[in-house]
Structures are given as structure tokens and as C-alpha cells.
């Protein structure tokens, strides 16, 4: 079964009015179970909108979306995906553990099972010593790890991430990327990951989806051929640089597409 299918999906904001914005046009994409797919492109290319379509936070104007074999709406109702945002969005008034428990609480789990699962998830993101801390006592990277634990709490097969490391400093960011791959190894989740960073997309992904703006389209899908375990050495690997070059050139092509309008194409 494929985890996500997008079949000729288009999406306009304010359709039929003079403020109509064509955010996405004719998107075809299917993501296999267990795959790590990154969406990359300049601002306004609709990559976040694409993620929100999969999450059923917005509805497509045209086309069909399947998530874990059901409609996107059903997937949301069934809690078959977890989501993490750029802002960790933790609840200040809840302890770290109770933040992770939130989705379980809403799904009607009893206290004991909730606690057990939350502690398991916190161990997974290596924050078991901070369960009773309050979110504002943690660093940005730790907060983001709590948000990931929360997104994974119900063990959804699919994890949607919208620039989750965008607000972190470079060192923390690289560390979090390695952690995310380790977590993915442990859970086997399918991950759809929106990012601005080319090295981040290449380091993490099996495939990188390169998008162009106005209207948002998929211009190219780059397969990342990194062999073996991805670790700090991977960042100095020839294949890693090759991947970066390929993604960068695909993005350049996007800019070249614009230069037909008379803009300098370097």
C-alpha cells in the first residue's frame, strides 16, 4: 500500500474571486510506505500547502488525495498521521509528559496507558529525564523533540513535518537531523518533510521533490543514492555532494524558468 497518493491535485485560495491565488497546479505524487520524502522549493511554491492538503487542514480545489489508503479527511479523523510544525507549539501550562499525552488524551486513552506511552516516546527522543519539566524550561531543540514525540505518540504510520528544524541553529539542526533518522529507524514511519535547506533535504531523504512557484508545480524528483547508514561521515561523502548539486541545479532551473520574464539569468 502506498502511504500518500496525490492524483492531479490543484488548489486555489479564494477561487472564483479576483483575489484568486493558484497555489498548486496538477500535482501527481505517490509516496511509498516507509519512504522519506522532502519537499523543497522557493517561498510561495506551495510546499507547505501541499503538506496541509495531505493533513486535510485545507481541501483541494481539484483532484484526489489518499492517505494510508483512505481519504485525507478520514485519515485525519482516524489519527493515522502525526504532524510537527516549525514552532514546536507546546502547551506552556502542561508538563513535557502531559504535552506528549495530549493526542492520547483526545483519543480517549486512560491515564495509565497514556503515561506509559508518553514515557516510551520521551525515551525514544532521549528526553526521559525531562518528563516533569515545563516546556519553557527546555531549549529550542529539546522543545522540537517533544513536539516529535507528541506527533508520534499514537504511533501513526505517517509523520508530516513542516520545516520542523527551521528555527534551530546549525549545530542543533544537524544533531536533530541525525536524531530524526534514528527515530525513523526505530518506528519505520513514512515521513513527508518540508524544508528550505538543500543539505537537510539530501541528508534525510530517499527522494527530494523540487517545486516551482506561481503556480506551485513539481519540476523534478531527485532520487538520493546514499549507501549505508547516514551519519556525520555522510555529510562529507561524494554521493552527498552529488545529491546537493543535483537538487541545486534543479532549483536553478526553476529560477531560469523565471528569467524568461526578462530577469537576469546569471
Amino acid at each position, binding site marked *: 500500500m502506498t502511504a500518500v497518493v496525490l492524483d492531479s491535485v490543484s488548489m486555489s485560495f479564494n477561487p472564483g474571486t479576483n483575489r484568486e491565488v493558484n497555489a498548486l497546479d496538477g500535482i501527481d505524487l505517490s509516496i511509498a510506505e516507509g519512504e522519506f520524502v522532502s519537499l523543497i522549493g522557493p517561498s510561495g511554491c506551495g510546499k507547505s500547502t501541499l503538506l496541509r492538503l495531505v493533513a486535510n*487542514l485545507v481541501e483541494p480545489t481539484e483532484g484526489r488525495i489518499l492517505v494510508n489508503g483512505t481519504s485525507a479527511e478520514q485519515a485525519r479523523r482516524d489519527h493515522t498521521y502525526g504532524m510537527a510544525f516549525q514552532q514546536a507549539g507546546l502547551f506552556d501550562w502542561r508538563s513535557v509528559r502531559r504535552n506528549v499525552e495530549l493526542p492520547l488524551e483526545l483519543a480517549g486513552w486512560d491515564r495509565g496507558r497514556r503515561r506509559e506511552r508518553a514515557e516510551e516516546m520521551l525515551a525514544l527522543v532521549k528526553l526521559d529525564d525531562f518528563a516533569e519539566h515545563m516546556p519553557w524550561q527546555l531549549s529550542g531543540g529539546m522543545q522540537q523533540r517533544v513536539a516529535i514525540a507528541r506527533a508520534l505518540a499514537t504511533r501513526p504510520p505517517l509523520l508530516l513535518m513542516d520545516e520542523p528544524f527551521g528555527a534551530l541553529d546549525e549545530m542543533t539542526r544537524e544533531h536533530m537531523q541525525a536524531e530524526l533518522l534514528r527515530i525513523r529507524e526505530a518506528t519505520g514511519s513514512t515521513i513527508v518533510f518540508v524544508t528550505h535547506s538543500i543539505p537537510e533535504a539530501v541528508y534525510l531523504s530517499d527522494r527530494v521533490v523540487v517545486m516551482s512557484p506561481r503556480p506551485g508545480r513539481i519540476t523534478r524528483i531527485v532520487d538520493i543514492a546514499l549507501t549505508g547508514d547516514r551519519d556525520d561521515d555522510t555529510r562529507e561523502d561524494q554521493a552527498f555532494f552529488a545529491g546537493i548539486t543535483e537538487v541545486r541545479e534543479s532549483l536553478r532551473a526553476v529560477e531560469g524558468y523565471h528569467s524568461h520574464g526578462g530577469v537576469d539569468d546569471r
Partner: protein
Amino acid sequence: MLRRAARKTALFVLAVFAVGCLWEAYKVIGPVDGGSVFGWKIIPKASDRAMPHTWDMIARLLEPENRSGGSPIAVTVAGYSWYTLRLAAVGLVIGGVVGIGLAVLMARWRIASRAILPWVIMSQTVPLIALAPQVVSWSGKIEIFGWEWPRWASVCALAAFLSFFPVAVGTLKGLTSVPAAPLELMETYAVPWRVTLVKLRFPAAVPFIIPSLKLAATLSVVGVIVAEISTGIRGGIGRAVLSYQQASTGDAEKIYSAVFGAAALGLALFGSVVLLEVIVNRNRPREATS
């Protein structure tokens, strides 16, 4: 925490002392019969009748209400204050519940906000003194399930009428100021609006609700005292202010006993909201509590 409390108490005592000093300083330099600027009589009289000495006012607290005898006036005034405090507390609770309820309605439906908000604002332009006799006249006319509307309930209603306003406005602001990320997160859980209200919007609004309750506490006290004075209900500090004033020609210090009582009860009700704040905010970051 304890050190901060001690420092705050010390500062409060110092502030009270400073006001006392200013008072006495004015008595030394101010004109006994007052004065006028450009024909307006705005410079207060410094006479002992208008501004008794601070020590005389304090000494008066220990003397009986009527010079004939009995317990010190401080005790009598404390009794009045206690009566008024209870009415103000009931008014604050009713005002708080009504204010939060209206805010929830307004946050839920935009149309409700358009329909209700103008009335909420207009309600505050009606002078309480004009409203008080009407509301007091309910007693004896209204009966709810065999419970006859007593006069004190009218006083509470008037206090609630003043205190619901800041709570409604503050809570509405809080409920609608939740950042986008946690709201989207709740949306991914596909939960109904009321669940988002209880789990997210309401706790997120607490830093807005607490200051509005502080305002409401002082307004509730003002409401009860004005209602007591304008309706002549006995037993409270409002009535005491009125009757002590009539005796002020020969006993100027007496009225200040009632003023102190009113101030003390205002502080007590305000303090109870601060206590609530400390309990609610015990696990929150400093920025949100200060």
C-alpha cells in the same frame, strides 16, 4: 518567592507611610480655608475638619462608634466591611461567570460577537446610580421557584453589572489570541470546537483573564458601595460612609474609619484574585505571570 512577597509587603507599608507624610506635609503648608486658581476653588482646605491628622484618624479607630461607649469603631467598621465584602465577592463571581460566558459565545460565533459586543459596551455607559433604584425595586416583585428576590441580591446584581465588562473583553481577547501552530495542531486531531476551547483556548487565555478579574474585583467593590449608598441598604460599608458623613461636623475622623474599611475590603477582594493568580500560574513561565 517568599522574599519577593516580603519585599512587596515592605514596599506597600512604605508607600502607605509616604502618603501619610504627604498628607501631613500638606496640612503644614496648605491654606486652612482652601484657595482658588483663576476663580476655581480647587486648592483643598487643610483644616482639621477637612483633613484630620493621620494620628487622630488612627486613634479614632480605637474609640467606640458613638462616643457613649461600646466596642472600638474599627471592630464595627470591620463588620460592615465583611458584609460588603461578601456581596462584592458574590458580584465578582457572577460578573466573572457572565463575562467569561459572553466571551466564549463571542469567540465561537463572529455573528454573536457583532450582536453582543455593542450591548456590552453600551451597558457600561449607563450610570449605576440611575440603574440602582430600578434593580432594587425587584425585591418583592420577583420570585424564582419560590425564592423571593431579596434586596441584597439587587446589590450583587449591580456589582456584577460593573464587573462583567472587563472580564468579557479580556477573556474574548485571550480566547482569540491563540497562536496558529497550536490551533492547527488541534485541527489535525479532528476534535470539536469545545474540546479546543477546554484544552487550548481557555488555558491560553488565562494571562488575559487574570488581569481582567483584578479590574473586576475593584469594580465589584465600587458597585456594591455605590448600590448600598444609592439604595440605603443597611449593614454594609456604603451605609456607614453615608451616616458617618452626617456626623462629620463634630467628628471628622469618623468618616475616615469607614474609608479605611472600604479600602481594606477592596484590597481583600483584590488579594483573593492575586491568590488565584499564584495558584493558576505556579507552573507557568515568569513572563506570563508578571
